[in-house]
């Protein structure tokens, strides 16, 4: 069997919610040993987020949490206690990489910030990720992903020109920030290999998100234009939209990039007489008559299922695709071919689908072995085998509440 990329790499993961944990997760799927440091006293927010198995909330029942913590080991510890902080520093000494996403200042109070960690492990690579960063006047703002969607400009630029900005369901920058962080960590590991030095990586998810608005930002910087909402239209292509198909709430995206592709499009729909109208023969005339053009396109798409329309368009070389729902994605033949969704069997949730990465490595494939762990599932392994505590010491720590064992308050789902 081939060596995994990060085999032998040790990661201590103090991070929470969505942007932080994905970084150790990706390292774990490529062979790293990752310990997720958790507590029954302060649950990782993902454990409190829906959806839960059978819609019954519980600390080990969130499929959201399970998805974003694959291949990790979970230990439970109450980091508010001095003795627990000592234990955590022993973990830091074992680690190559430390990840955290607490409110700025929290790790410092527990003696687990970068400077403290460096004292026990001078070559540690340490990264902090929060919404707005460790410094600056808004560093303590406690928003969620939706606030960053609004701040970074995604909400105001998404939707229809005659309507209001769009509520973006996903915490979008949480799905941009981790990939940059991983690249930086890989670079830091290479640098450490050459120099023996560790380093600190600090991230504001807001800033990582803003990098994905780059062209609109330059448009404002250079042309003074604040790009608004344009639905699905493109400044330089027509037709360029999402059109209704046969069935209930079924849609297809069709984009025609240039006049050659327009000819392909006309051929694909059988060259009906309206396509010969000079109103539509060039990009300029199509842009000028876009409402009418879109009505004609919709007339055609309504006669087909979204899948049929996609096949016809693609056979003629016109970029088109079904607007896929979650259910469509799970049945998508291309994603099946790439084995994008992997089924893992969670002890409380049972078998369900997990996302694989977006890239395939020919020689060192990722491996998804286990779903996000139950809270404290690997205490024995971590305390005994990795940290070398004796049975007696462990019993004492349980008695003292250093090792947390039960969630005692009534469970409150977060969403």
């Amino acid at each position: 069997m081939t060596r995994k990329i990060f085999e032998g790499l040790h990661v201590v993961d103090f991070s929470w919610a969505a942007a932080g944990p994905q970084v150790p997760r990706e390292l774990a799927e490529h062979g790293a040993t990752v310990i997720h440091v958790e507590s029954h006293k302060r649950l990782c927010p993902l454990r409190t987020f829906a959806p839960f198995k059978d819609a019954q909330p519980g600390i080990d029942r969130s499929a959201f949490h399970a998805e974003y913590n694959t291949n990790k080991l979970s230990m439970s510890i109450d980091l508010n206690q001095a003795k627990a902080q000592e234990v955590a520093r022993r973990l830091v000494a074992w680690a190559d990489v430390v990840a955290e996403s607490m409110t700025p200042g929290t790790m410092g109070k527990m003696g687990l910030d970068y400077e403290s960690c460096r004292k026990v492990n001078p070559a540690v690579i340490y990264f902090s990720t929060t919404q707005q960063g460790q410094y600056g006047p808004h560093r303590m703002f406690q928003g969620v992903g939706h606030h960053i969607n609004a701040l970074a400009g995604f909400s105001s630029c998404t939707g229809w020109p005659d309507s209001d900005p769009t509520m973006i369901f996903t915490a979008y920058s949480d799905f941009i920030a981790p990939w940059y962080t991983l690249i930086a960590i890989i670079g830091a590991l290479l640098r450490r290999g050459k120099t023996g030095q560790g380093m600190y990586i600090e991230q504001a998810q807001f800033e990582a998100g803003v990098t994905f608005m780059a062209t609109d930002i330059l448009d404002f910087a250079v042309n003074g234009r604040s790009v608004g909402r344009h639905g699905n239209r493109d400044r330089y292509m027509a037709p360029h939209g999402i059109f209704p198909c046969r069935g209930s709430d079924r849609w297809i995206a069709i984009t025609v990039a240039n006049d050659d592709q327009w000819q392909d499009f006309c051929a694909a729909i059988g060259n009906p007489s309206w396509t010969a109208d000079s109103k539509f023969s060039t990009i300029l005339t199509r842009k000028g008559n876009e409402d009418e053009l879109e009505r004609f396109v919709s007339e055609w798409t309504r006669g087909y299922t979204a899948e049929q329309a996609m096949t016809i368009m693609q056979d003629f070389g016109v970029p088109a695709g079904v607007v896929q729902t979650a259910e469509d994605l799970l049945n998508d033949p291309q994603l099946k071919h790439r084995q994008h969704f992997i089924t893992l069997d969670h002890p409380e949730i049972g078998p369900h689908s997990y996302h694989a990465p977006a890239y395939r490595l020919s020689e060192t494939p990722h491996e998804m072995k286990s779903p996000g762990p139950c809270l404290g599932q690997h205490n024995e392994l971590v305390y005994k085998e990795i940290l070398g505590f004796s049975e007696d010491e462990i019993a004492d720590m349980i008695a003292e509440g250093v090792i947390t064992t039960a969630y005692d308050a009534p469970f409150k789902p977060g969403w």
Partner: protein
Amino acid sequence: MNNTLFGGCRVLDLTDEKGLLCGKVLGDFGADVIKIEKLGGDPARYIGPFHKDIPDPEKSLFWFATNTSKRGITLNIEVPDGRDLFLKLVASADIVAESFEPGYMDAIGLGYAELKQTKPGVIMTSITPFGQSGPYAGYGATDLVATSMGGLSRILGDLGRPPVRMGSVPQAYFHAGLQGALGSAMAFYHRELTGVGQHVDVSMQEAMTLTLMNTIEIFEMLNANLVGLGQFFVSVRPGQSPLFTRTIVPCKDGYITVMFGGGAFSGVAESSKALVKWANEEGMALELKDFDFATQWDASTLTQEESDRRNAIIGQFFMTKTKAELYEKAVERGILLAPCNTMEDLTKNEQLRARGFWESVEHPELGETIVYPGAPLKMQETPWQIQRRAPRIGEHNEEIFLGDLGLNLQQMTVLKANGVI
């Protein structure tokens, strides 16, 4: 570049708009990236918007944004002389990034097997709409098609209207490029440790599915396909109709996003209380003065009418304030509220300014310094930096063909005259 994370890593970038960000990301982290364009320039140079709205291959803002920290050459890799020159560059390279239709590189004799023969240990990163093989491998995709096939469009848009694309910056191209950079970095790390190179196969569709958060889990656990809900957040309630709460709301000069409510929503109760307290100080929302959001706001039993009524009360307060006024107090008082920033608002954001986020990049040919988005993360030891502005067409031809590849001027002239360079 000694003081960077990827100094000493050379990337040959053959990608089009779908993969340009890959080389930019690696370049900004210090890699030596050479953008190889068709003669006359890459078609992505015709993607707008343009500097001063003048369509010109040297004025595409899309090109500027996705090609910083690269040098640029022109080379026809389809003819024998061009192919030979390309392979000479491969001998000095660590990563070759491309985004042609699957099979094209093999067809012109530059498939991964050939590259490996020239340079054992080389990494090839292929960025395509659907991946290198499979039933849709030959399908084309623009940003809208990939965001639709990857599921993001489906969960955006107003109720009762078609699904919509995320913004107008091509998110699928950006995600595919960033995933390409990540896959390349993974493979480069492995190569540095073991000497073994590999082929990295990136799917734009798959990259988009990774932005869906818990959409797939919601389907599997609750048998519900999410759709765009416009400006609303929905609470799914077993045994009753879902509750719609407007979270994008108008204010005096635009829109904000806010979470108003309580009960099980962690943090929202305190935030709502603080918001009502502020409104009360200004003589508004008095009806909610003694309302206990933690115990009295129960999303599982609340009627839609009552929820709408309470939201309308606080909505009147928002109409008396600007985005900036609301956000300033929100930060100060711990209220979960943020402005729906326009691009103009974004450039004025205090936090980004205080952190030194924006980067100034010189464009001497335009007689201008342009402000770019800066680092996606900060590192003191090895600062992230835009090494140079995007290359002009063939800007580094002499530097690379004469310098790196050792051609003489006469050879270069012959190659130019024959449409190779």
